[in-house]
């Protein structure tokens, strides 16, 4: 009989910890334009390779190349750049507001702006996103007012959610943005149900589900893929792989799977992997998956490969678990700079215009912030009445809540 050695638990570790030299040599980056663009009715088996590659449009020189290029006009790209710059500026101002004590909490998108800003532009009115807390670009790209966003963050008198929700957990039915929950992954399976409802009612609207790399480990992720696959729900299943779930590197959630996109293949769902810092590539794959869903061809899984440049939230310090310079070493660069360079290369933008746009955007964000602050912040000025606390638990207030409201004296 062979000798039996004791077993040992395998716990994945990131390649580098604080103090180390950032190393992304394991991230295999194909050349821009190298990945083919299949027809939208292609089955998952025929495009298996796409779950292990990275669809990219912008090359090192800032040119748009390959079969996924050529979908956006100069104006559309300038709009996209403006959306991303607005989101980045808004993040910076709200981060500052949190440090100044005007709100309790904030979460920024630094480095991930292309994913939500570009995806939103591929949707049609009436479609519904089921976002996480890190897709405010969906709101900005759909024209949601910055003032209202800031009012929600300040929980002030104009907060559309009446002070009931933590900052950044926005909700706007009108803008196709489902109410964000603090409970991870719950919205992923709800998106599938919303899409099933659209199919049941013979509607033409589709749903988009959003999740981070870490939350793919939640059971609702798996439930969502089973239901999406079984009922061929018209849904785009988005995974934003920013490498980090708070302090936990993506390998803890991914395990032995080569990629997160590969998870889709086991469910028979076509899966794409895309450069999340490439605005044009994100838009192109979103268009492809949305077309599939709207043609009743079923769900698509998309993994956006990106990097969480900022802290997880205002309550987090990444220097405790990863090298401070890691984001500089990220091989897919910065989405704003890459689109800017592309527009300049196209002759549709310039350094001067960019500086001017930066100044204009900062001015408009500060103006929105000031307007929001005029309606109050968390600890000063007006805020929603305590009476609001009792409203909306049910459509009609039941007797026991009426009694409690009376006891509260509001």
């Amino acid at each position, binding site marked *: 009989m062979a000798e039996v050695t004791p077993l040992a638990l395998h716990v994945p570790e990131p390649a580098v910890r604080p103090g180390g030299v950032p190393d992304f040599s394991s991230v295999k980056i194909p050349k821009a334009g190298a990945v083919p663009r299949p027809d939208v009715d292609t089955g998952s088996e025929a495009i298996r390779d796409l779950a292990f590659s990275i669809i990219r449009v912008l090359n090192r020189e800032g040119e748009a190349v390959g079969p996924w290029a050529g979908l956006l006009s100069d104006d559309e790209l300038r709009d996209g750049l403006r959306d991303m710059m607005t989101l980045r500026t808004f993040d910076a101002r709200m981060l500052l507001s949190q440090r100044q004590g005007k709100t309790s909490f904030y979460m920024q998108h630094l480095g991930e702006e292309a994913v939500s800003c570009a995806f939103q532009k591929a949707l049609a009115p009436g479609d519904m996103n089921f976002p996480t807390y890190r897709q405010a670009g969906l709101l900005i790209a759909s024209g949601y007012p910055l003032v209202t966003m800031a009012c929600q963050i300040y929980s002030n008198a104009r907060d559309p959610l009446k002070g009931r929700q933590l900052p950044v957990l926005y909700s706007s039915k009108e803008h196709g943005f489902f109410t964000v929950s603090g409970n991870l992954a*719950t919205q992923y399976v709800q998106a599938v149900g919303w899409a099933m409802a659209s199919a049941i009612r013979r509607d033409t609207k589709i749903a988009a589900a959003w999740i981070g790399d870490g939350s793919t480990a939640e059971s609702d992720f798996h439930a969502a893929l089973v239901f999406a696959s079984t009922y061929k729900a018209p849904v785009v299943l988005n995974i934003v792989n920013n490498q980090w779930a708070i302090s936990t590197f993506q390998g803890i959630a991914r395990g032995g799977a080569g990629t997160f996109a590969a998870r889709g293949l086991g469910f028979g769902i076509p899966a794409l992997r895309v450069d999340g810092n490439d605005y044009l590539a994100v838009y192109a794959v979103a268009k492809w998956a949305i077309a599939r869903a709207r043609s009743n061809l079923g769900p698509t899984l998309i993994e956006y490969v990106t990097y969480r440049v900022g802290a997880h939230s205002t309550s987090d310090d990444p220097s405790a678990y990863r090298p401070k310079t890691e984001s500089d070493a990220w091989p897919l660069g910065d989405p704003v700079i890459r689109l800017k360079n592309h527009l300049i290369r196209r002759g549709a933008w310039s350094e001067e215009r960019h500086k001017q746009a930066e100044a204009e955007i900062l001015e408009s964000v500060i103006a929105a912030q000031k307007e929001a602050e005029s309606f109050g912040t968390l600890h000063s000025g007006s805020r929603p009445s305590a009476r609001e606390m009792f409203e909306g638990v049910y459509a009609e207030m039941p007797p026991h809540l009426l009694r409690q409201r009376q006891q509260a004296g509001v």
Partner: protein
Amino acid sequence: MPRMSMVEAIRDAMDVMMARDESVVVFGEDVGYFGGVFRCTYGLQQKYGTSRCFDAPVSESGIVGTAVGMAAYGLRPCVEIQFADYVYPAYDQIVSEAARLRYRSNGEFTCPLVIRMPTGGGIFGGQTHSQSPEALFTHVSGLKTVVPSNPYDAKGLLIAAIEDPDPVIFLEPKRLYNGPFDGHHERPVTPWSKHAASDVPAGHFALPLGKASIARAGTDVTVLAYGTMVHVAQAAAAETGIDAEIIDLRTLVPYDLDTMVASVAKTGRCVVIHEATLTSGFGAELAALIQETCFYHLEAPVARVAGWDTPYPHAQEWDYFPGPGRVARALVETVEA
């Protein structure tokens, strides 16, 4: 009026609502082609098609999670969890999502959803086919929790639940599906057809949620009960000769405090009974409410008869189930106190 068992009344309620409202959809494990392991959805798929009534994967969080999304879209899903004992994988979706959509979105998104689930013991169901988890739902703001005790109520309350704009947990005592049960397991079971409450109106009729009914009027002591225990209480009253006023709560949240207070003010005594385990059970809430609102009327401590604080056993079914003997003792002690 047609005579219906509880299973037939529940099926009829869904049939009526599916015919009236295109947005009503019914799904769950084995719910579609087969018609449900308890036959509650039998024939619905044939009548309304696979897009209105269909089989679901074995995933409770998937069933409730997709239903929340459907409700947010504007449908009225009426989904089934095969046994209440198996609702726990869906608990996050129920507590964190269904119950809070309206509140957290300030009414932008709502959740007109019904989650049906067979509940309760008395059937040798052992640990995972006998539980009564209602207190896990009554503790959650934003949910309504309903437990019918007869076919008439089951139909009227289920129609009201489907029409309600908020999520409703609809617990069906499976011991009552085919006939009333008073805890006398040694006697043969009688079918619903021999019981007045099996006279169920055809077509649409709804009973208000949040309203209790008086199952037996009396003056000696008030019994607060729901589900199977309503029938147990009636047996205990008959056997002791105590003139108990038995209140069938029907809806646990929102509860009908006015009916409870009026009764205890009259009788001065109160016994709370349920199958669920005692500690932190819904009976604790009822006892506290009666103490707060009826303190000066009370002539005896509020008594509770409940399942023991153990998992639901198999062989010891009748030692565990709070039968008429245990309820009768509590009635006598409370009246003589």
